[in-house]
């Protein structure tokens, strides 16, 4: 069993911004342990000398010309907004600062 604790899952849920009840944390901890146990076998085969592949088909230097394309009106931008004010998206108070 992978050493994933309930506290670990709580931390991950916080990083992922998903509120979870005690029961959910408990269940997730168990499931995650099983999954991680079975996927961590990848470490056995991943030797130091093997390069990582981040993109399945190798392309490089795909660039766009610096030209201006279409834009949305404020109305279009805000069409799906849960809340808006003065042409801007409205959100509840922010506690953390970046």
């Amino acid at each position, binding site marked *: 069993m992978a050493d994933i604790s309930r506290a670990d899952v709580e931390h991950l849920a916080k990083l992922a*911004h998903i509120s979870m009840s005690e029961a959910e944390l408990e269940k997730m901890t168990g499931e995650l342990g099983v999954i991680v146990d079975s996927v961590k076998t990848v470490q056995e*085969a991943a030797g130091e000398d093997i390069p990582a592949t981040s993109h399945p088909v190798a392309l490089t230097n795909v660039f766009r010309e610096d030209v201006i394309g279409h834009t949305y009106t404020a109305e279009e931008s805000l069409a799906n907004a849960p809340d808006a004010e003065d042409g801007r998206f409205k959100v509840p108070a922010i506690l953390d600062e970046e």
Partner: protein
Amino acid sequence: MTTTPHSTDLIRLTAAEMAAKLRAGEITSVDLTQAHLDRIEAVEPTLNAFLHVSAEEALTTAAEVDKIRVAGGAEAEKLHPLAGVPIAIKDLIVTKGQPTTAASKILEGWMSPYDATVVEKIREAKLPILGKTNLDEFAMGSSTEHSAFGPTRNPWDIERIPGGSGGGSAAAVAAFEAPLALGTDTGGSIREPGAFTGTVGTKPTYGGVSRYGAIAMASSLDQIGPVTRTVEDAALLHELIGGHDPKDSTSLPEPVPALVDAARTHDVAGKKIGVIKQLATGEGYQQGVLDAFNSSLDALREAGAEIVEVDCPSFDYALGAYYLIMPSEASSNLARYDGVRYGTRVLPEEGPLTIERVMGATRAAGFGEEVKRRIILGTYALSAGYYDAYYGSAQKIRTLIQRDFDAAFEQADVLISPTAPTVAFKMGEKTDDPMAMYLNDIATIPANLAGIPGINVPAGLSDGLPVGIQFLAPAKEDARVYHAAAALEELLGGKGEVIWQQIPDLASSSVDV
């Protein structure tokens, strides 16, 4: 509503046949589209393959095509070969004017202000869009049971799942609700439902079809592809949606290969077909699946193909690598659903109203269990201190799998395996066991990790349920899988006609809940 015999005949045609009849003026697109809408109305209460049906829009496009055809001249000449043939779109692909939900409550009611590139191409070619098909939420699943809007049922046996994530598209095509559909394949979401419903489905080479407008699950694995009842139809649709797109940086610069030509040649004499040792036997493979697989090999051998065995030892780690890379990328791609700009916003039931808590409550209520599981798993795999061991190692496995494929393709023109180890399983059978569900994708995942093309083609029935065979080819050699799949289709009785005569008549069945 009951369907007339005439319209029933119409919907059982292949897309290529429908297109030919439209061109010849024997049928109109409005009649063809209406026949499918009638069928949808008749079987949807049973199947739930569609999340949204856009009858009006589809009929408008159909009428436009008919008008151009009747007028004749250059405009009619310029019509795309598939113009007027209706299509269904997996609800993971964004469409203007129709809702796109990804089968998630978090996107309920969202209207995209833009069309996916593939949808632009379909509109340009004037294929009437019948609606949006059901899927596992954000394409995360192998059974379509993880849709927030209820599961889709398998038209071969409504007690069984149609596969996933693209169970809606596969079931719709199998049940004659649509001759063509679009799917997306991240680890098998086109091919595995294909196997379970007897449909043909292709995962193109990574970059072969633009991903612009396909709601991302795992960016380095996702590809849009065709879902149809015949190999030729798949090739026709693939050629329409494929090609370079400047809006997708990972889009290949090369033009689409000549896939329809490949699908129309059935000669496999002298071709080398490699059986992947790791995907042909072993625990978990049902006897009925292995029997159908072996019959297919016999048929190919008799037709002059040389069957060789290839060894891909790294495939043992493919599932592990996939279930690290996919959730890692998905956890990032799904971070944007936070209730700030679009979609559902859920306020916390108690405590102070801050944006952090609103985001937490929104994502808690908006995402289903499987989505949350993968987000947490991905967050774990990318977090400080674990990156090298998990995500980093998985990326190295990807290299090894590519090397295994490179070596295998030195010995064979195409590779072959069963698409899934089993036939369609019963609803609810695996929902409580995530690992058992994940194991379904064992044969389809390596192609996504390596970026190569793969196709599912039906290979008969086992106890009345379809079995699928998968062909794989090197990257950018999509034509090879069409060629091989068309050959097998022909050898097994031609365009799947044999199996389609055996599908139950759904219009008379009812859901037994």
